[in-house]
């Protein structure tokens, strides 16, 4: 049972990581609480679903879902956030909240209030080792997350763009004075972060076989807790925090069997950690 619960926790943690990473990248560079990120996540699921209905091929629909989310993320940054950056941070926060509400309602109006099914054939098969079992969709989540994390790591640590991204996240002004095109870097952050959220949306859509208008409402706040837990803007910290929360939830429910709402676990963990490490798990002052 322990091993099985471990696998369950890792799968959940992977999806949290994909959603939260985008959020932490946006935060790291713009210092905006980007609630609408969860709308981007749902948009990825809807775009992927629609593409899947048109072409019937899962991997292509995953790609289209990511592209749709990336585009939406870019447009939001370009037309909504960037004109508000000189203002107190509460202004973009409200824009983000309003946008998220409008997006959820758009999904409902366009695609109907009922849940859509995303019943894709992936073609990698289950993985069984004795009593322990990873289903096809769990395996899919692990593979895609792993690939995306590797690509992200390569971009950040092996390319000039990645260097510029890290420099901007540390101190955008100084980076700008060294000739970094901050505007372009911000756009790249949004594109990559949103594409990851879109991937998470598609993966969850397939994992649960469900795509529905308010699917983003829980990730909207849970991802924020994870991001804070990891140390806002800190990429390795966010990955670590995602798996910690995924595991903690699974163990709370499946092993300790304490009747405690799952969503509160992330926040309790966050508050406890902040008491001892005010900048999050891997955050630095």
């Amino acid at each position, binding site marked *: *049972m322990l091993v*099985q*619960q471990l696998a*369950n*926790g890792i799968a*959940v943690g992977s999806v949290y990581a994909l959603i939260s990473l985008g959020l932490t990248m946006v935060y790291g560079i713009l210092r905006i609480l980007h609630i609408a990120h969860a709308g981007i996540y749902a948009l990825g699921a809807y775009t992927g679903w629609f593409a899947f209905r048109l072409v019937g091929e899962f991997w292509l629909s995953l790609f289209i879902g990511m592209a749709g989310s990336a585009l939406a993320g870019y447009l939001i940054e370009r037309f909504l956030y960037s004109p508000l950056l000189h203002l107190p941070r509460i202004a973009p926060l409200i824009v983000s909240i309003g946008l998220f509400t409008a997006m959820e*309602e758009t999904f*409902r109006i366009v695609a*109907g*209030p*009922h*849940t859509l*099914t995303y*019943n894709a054939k992936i073609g990698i098969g289950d993985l069984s080792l004795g009593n322990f*079992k990873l*289903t096809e969709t769990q395996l899919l989540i692990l593979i895609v997350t792993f690939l995306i994390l590797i690509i992200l790591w390569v971009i950040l640590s092996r390319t000039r763009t990645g260097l510029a991204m890290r420099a901007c996240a540390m101190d955008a002004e100084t980076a700008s004075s060294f000739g970094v095109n901050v505007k372009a870097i911000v756009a790249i952050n949004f594109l990559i972060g949103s594409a990851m959220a879109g991937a998470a949306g598609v993966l*969850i859509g397939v994992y*649960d*076989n*469900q795509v*529905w*208008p*308010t699917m983003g*409402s*829980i990730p909207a706040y849970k991802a924020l807790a994870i991001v804070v837990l990891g140390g806002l803007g800190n990429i390795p910290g966010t990955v670590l925090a995602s798996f910690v929360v995924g595991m903690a*939830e*699974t*163990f709370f*429910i*499946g*092993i300790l*069997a304490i*009747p405690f*709402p*799952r*969503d509160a676990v992330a926040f309790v963990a966050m508050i406890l950690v902040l008491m001892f490490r005010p900048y999050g798990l891997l955050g630095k002052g």
Partner: protein
Amino acid sequence: MGKNFGIGAFVLGLSIFLATGMVFSQETIKIGFFAPITGPAAADGTSAKNAVELGLKEVNETGGIRGKKVELIIYDDRLNPQEAVAIANKLIEKDKVIGVVSGSYSGPTRVTAPIFQKAQIPMVVGYAVHPDVTWDPKEKKPNDFIFRNGFLGEVEGAAAAEFAVKNLKAKRISIIFMDNDFGRAISSGFAERAEKLGATILTRQMYKFPGEKDFRPYLTRIKEGNPDLIFAAGYYNEAASIVRQAKELGITAQIMGEEGFDSPKFLEIAGPAAEGVIIATNLDRDDPRPLVQNFLKNYRKTYNEDADMVGASSYDAFMILVEAIRKAGTDPKAIQKALLETKDYNGLTGKISRFIQGEVVKPVQIQIVKEGKFRRLGVVDNIEVITPPPKK
């Protein structure tokens, strides 16, 4: 002359306009309806609204009530209790409805019940389950203007247990339910009856609603206990996830659900994993009565999707009210009296023998999923089980 003619025409026009307005307002019978049409529960709200509008069309196409057309006044409550309070007052004072149908959840229905009770406007509730909708906990007496077409959670749970233990011979049972009023009521009704009939409850787990999608931790724990039946309470999204994930984990125990499973969406999302799942509900799709078959057919034709339990229950609530108006006329008190006297009413969701303290008495349907469809498996009509327990 010309000038006088103009004034005359104006006066004439105005009086025709006013007269038609008056005739119009005299000729319609106004019924209020509220449901969560936007926001997080929009799927159920839309089902309820669609089904009731279908009922409205049927009533008006067959000549209305006593020659008068029925006008349905629809409001969206967004699952928000403050909005529901405003809606209730608006329906009573501005729209002057003579009866109300609730197509909403417990929260909005529970806050509006005392308002309709006080104004003495009868309300028939489609599927909201909170026990105090029909009961005034302060005065310890029934809200005698409120009637519920759906089962009390306890009753449906007990009926499910009756079938599980007596017919399916379940001895070792695990329960998983959502943490809202419906989940709690139905699971405690189930557990109580099952234990009374001699079964053992191995685990009782509660999950967060709304929002829970990953039931693997719960199910992995259930699997350890090796039960022969799992009773799961939830709405169709969660239900489908439970059933799918149980299958994934190789759980072979019989899964039994309740009316929340009763939606074509459950079948669609769960896919082959739904096969063999048994549910306790109030809609029997194999019911040969033309009323049932026509409803299912018309719903499909009008909305291009299959009807669900929420829709069927709301449709019934509307029709029960219409029937009472037919009998008693347009005085709300007379309508309430007719509702109190309801006897052997032939409803879409079964034959209603009567209302006790506003709670419906009708058999509980047991359905099984066969080849991707809900089919009749049995009926629980043991009077001891389906009679709502007296409130105190």
